[in-house]
């Protein structure tokens, strides 16, 4: 893989040859690429699960699936989409593109970053190995006790869920931690915090939210696992516990989670819109402030998932107020996007089509969200297909369309090849039509009394036709996804060369080659405006300080990067980054062994895992791994 070119910068940033080099790679682009690919595979798996479910519900009293299988499928569908797709894909885009947008060469802690990926991969495999064990989680993605407790789920189903999800959450927290430090410290000189791209703003807020929202769920799952394995009763009223404790902890995580998923998608839209309308974004400060406001407000709304639990009306109304309030920053962002579109000259290529799809669908989902925020209406709508429809409008509209927009926009940067406009347009329209056909009728059938999470329903009470429409729609969506995937695969061989900047972009990632060199930028860019590529020449080396020339043509074989100050991005110091490490893989594997030990109740396996953890942590801290 590596050929010595004589250029020290190229040599030191090259991946080591062979399998060991691949396993030990720590560069953010390799890690990010793996994250994106893995998340997308999980997305497809979760999508196929939904096709099985839709086929089952296409007709009343269907016997295509037995109830056990159906319950497993909806549990794994929700778990996969939330934990293995939506959160990782946002962070994955962050890991790949934020360093490029900031003019950085790598993440601040590349080895930790690699560990995050391995933990994610192993956690996902751990969850899915439940299919091999014949013990698939079946208590829903929210795993309410007592149903998920030792008495009503005595087999190992829920252990797979609890440990697998914890594993993935650890990965999420690690990536968030990386992204926060990256954004605070590795911005291009001159890129004050008030000038960084809105995509970066959204990831900064998202990552900070993850740091406060995910660890409580990790703790909550630890308590549930203690109930299951040790016999404590945190959620068991018989010994003074309370199942509602889980609901509070879960939704403390679970509602911010929605915005954790959404904000990176909003960031993607903010990145694409100005480029495809050929104008600067309207209301940069408003959008950034709204992003921060959403981040804060999202921690004050968790009880709106618990409106039917018998909490008194006064308490609930407070959470209605919070939930309604959060639509204001949401509205600010939407209308800033519309204003941008209005002022610009839109170019209707697939990335912009997906952005328009996002606006049309997401606003709809936001409005039905306002409805379910109203306590009395939610008493009717809660846990019905109305809610299913609502959050698919929010999540598919708010996340999937932006993610597909982001992929069509940035894939050329990653691979150097363009996607096909016509295939992309076909895929978009299939997805858009199929999506609405699937989920619009579900609002109605929910109001007609159809609850969620049912494997079948009685005939003759008015639910049949809406379900049939939904099922047809789901297969149209699947066709759209197939076209999209085919387009991606096709571009690998047949795609037109993209060049450095196929869209006329405004942010720094378009200043480098496609795909980027391993070191991203030979010359560390300097950015003093919000649209550096439109306003200045960030890679101009002339007249700059000596350290920039030294970093461009290094005298030592090290991976060097300059760190900058938190607010105004003044250069701080030149740091050295690790080149290659197997410790992250070892650490993730040891953690996996430990969790398997817990899972099968074998202390010996657990101790081996713990010993491995200790060895890897010490080895990691002791070695620097920044010398070739």
């Amino acid at each position, binding site marked *: 893989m590596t050929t010595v070119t004589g250029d020290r910068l190229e040599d030191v940033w090259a991946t080591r040859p062979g399998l060991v080099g691949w396993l030990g790679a720590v560069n953010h682009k390799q890690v990010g690429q793996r994250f994106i690919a893995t998340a997308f595979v999980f997305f497809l798996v979760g999508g196929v699960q939904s096709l099985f479910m839709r086929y089952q519900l296409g007709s009343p009293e269907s016997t295509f699936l037995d109830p056990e299988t159906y319950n497993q499928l909806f549990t794994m569908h929700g778990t996969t989409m939330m934990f293995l797709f939506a959160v990782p894909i946002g962070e994955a885009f962050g890991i790949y593109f934020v360093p490029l947008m900031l003019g950085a060469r790598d993440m601040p802690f590349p080895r930790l970053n690699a560990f995050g990926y391995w933990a994610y991969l192993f956690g996902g495999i751990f969850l899915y190995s439940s299919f091999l064990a014949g013990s698939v989680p079946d208590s829903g993605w929210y795993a309410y006790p007592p149903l998920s407790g030792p008495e009503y789920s005595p087999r190992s189903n829920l252990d797979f869920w609890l440990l697998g999800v914890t594993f993935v959450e650890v990965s999420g927290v690690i990536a968030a931690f990386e992204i926060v430090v990256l954004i605070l410290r590795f911005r291009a000189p001159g890129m004050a915090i008030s000038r960084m791209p809105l995509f970066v703003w959204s990831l900064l807020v998202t990552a900070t939210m993850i740091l406060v929202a995910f*660890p409580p769920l990790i703790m909550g799952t630890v308590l549930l696992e203690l109930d299951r394995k*040790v016999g*404590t009763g*945190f959620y068991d009223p018989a010994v003074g516990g309370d199942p509602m*404790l889980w609901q509070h*902890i879960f939704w403390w995580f679970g509602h911010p989670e929605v915005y954790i998923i959404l904000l990176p998608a909003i960031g993607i839209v903010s990145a694409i819109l100005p480029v495809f309308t050929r104008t600067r974004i309207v209301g940069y400060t408003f959008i950034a402030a709204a992003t921060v406001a959403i981040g804060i407000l999202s921690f004050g709304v968790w009880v709106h998932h618990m409106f039917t639990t018998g909490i008194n009306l006064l308490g609930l109304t407070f959470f209605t107020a919070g939930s309604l309030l959060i639509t204001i920053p949401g509205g600010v962002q939407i209308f800033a996007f519309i204003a941008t579109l209005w002022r610009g000259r839109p170019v209707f290529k697939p990335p912009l089509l997906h952005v328009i799809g996002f606006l049309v669908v997401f606003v709809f989902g936001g409005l039905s969200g306002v409805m379910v925020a109203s306590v009395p209406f939610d008493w009717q709508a809660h846990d019905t297909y109305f809610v299913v429809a609502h959050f698919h409008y929010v999540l598919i509209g708010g996340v999937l369309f932006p993610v597909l927009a982001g992929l069509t926009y940035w894939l050329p940067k990653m691979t150097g090849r363009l996607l096909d406009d016509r295939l992309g347009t076909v895929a978009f329209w299939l997805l858009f039509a199929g999506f609405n056909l699937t989920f619009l009728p579900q609002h109605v059938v929910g109001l007609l009394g159809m609850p969620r999470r049912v494997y079948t329903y009685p005939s003759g009470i008015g639910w049949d036709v809406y379900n049939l429409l939904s099922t047809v729609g789901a297969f149209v969506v699947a066709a759209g996804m197939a076209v999209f995937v085919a387009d991606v695969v096709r571009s690998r061989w047949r795609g037109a060369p993209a060049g450095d900047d196929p869209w006329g972009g405004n942010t720094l990632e378009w200043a480098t080659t496609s795909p980027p060199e391993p070191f991203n930028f030979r010359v560390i860019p300097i950015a003093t405006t919000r649209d550096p590529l439109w306003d200045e020449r960030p890679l101009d080396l002339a007249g700059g300080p000596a350290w920039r020339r030294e970093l461009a043509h290094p005298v030592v074989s090290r991976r060097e990067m300059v*760190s900058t*100050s938190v607010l105004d991005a003044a250069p*701080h110091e030149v740091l050295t980054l690790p080149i290659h490490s197997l410790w992250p893989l070892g650490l993730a594997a040891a953690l996996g062994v430990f969790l398997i030990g817990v899972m099968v109740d074998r202390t010996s396996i657990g101790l081996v895992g713990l010993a491995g953890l200790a060895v890897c942590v010490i080895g990691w801290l002791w070695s620097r791994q920044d010398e070739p």
Partner: protein
Amino acid sequence: MTAGPAGEFDLDLPPPGRIAGRATGWWGMVTGLVALASMHSTLLFAHVYLAARAQAWPPAGTDAPGLVPASIATAVLMLSGVAGAVAHSAAGTGGTRRLQAATAVTALLGAVFVTLAVGDLRGLELEMRAHVYDATFVVFWAFAVFMIAIGIAGLVFIQFQLWGARLDQRQRLLAVNAALWWYFAIGCWLAVYGTLYLGAGVWR
């Protein structure tokens, strides 16, 4: 000075050791501690939530834990915090010797604390399966003590690294981070001490 469209600003690196603001590793540690703190807060929330709903907390038949042993342990831990602060300042500007001595004292006092605290817990004879009070007590307590134990391991690790070596920037940073961790672990314990011991009567 370099002129950009946004005005003049300084592009030169400050001289080493004169950097205004914190190191990247410092930010990393603080960010990580935020995540751990939100885990510990979850246990605090669980305790308060369950206690507020209970008829009696501790439940009938269980005595509130005695204050004396835990208070002695807490005092020792506070002393170790002072030693930790000395190590912190030594990590910034001081010499290897002072740093080594201060981290050693911190770790030692920490070990004494763990011994005292474990002894106290054993004396309480809590039965995790019998009542959620016992389970909450043990888990909340264990999280804090575990943080202190990890802190001790980190301090010992630094001792090994400092053995006969010259203090470089990386080791200084490691020591600063160990001190930050130590403050955090003390904070965890104070939350436990305040709720489980001092606050034991509140929900009676």
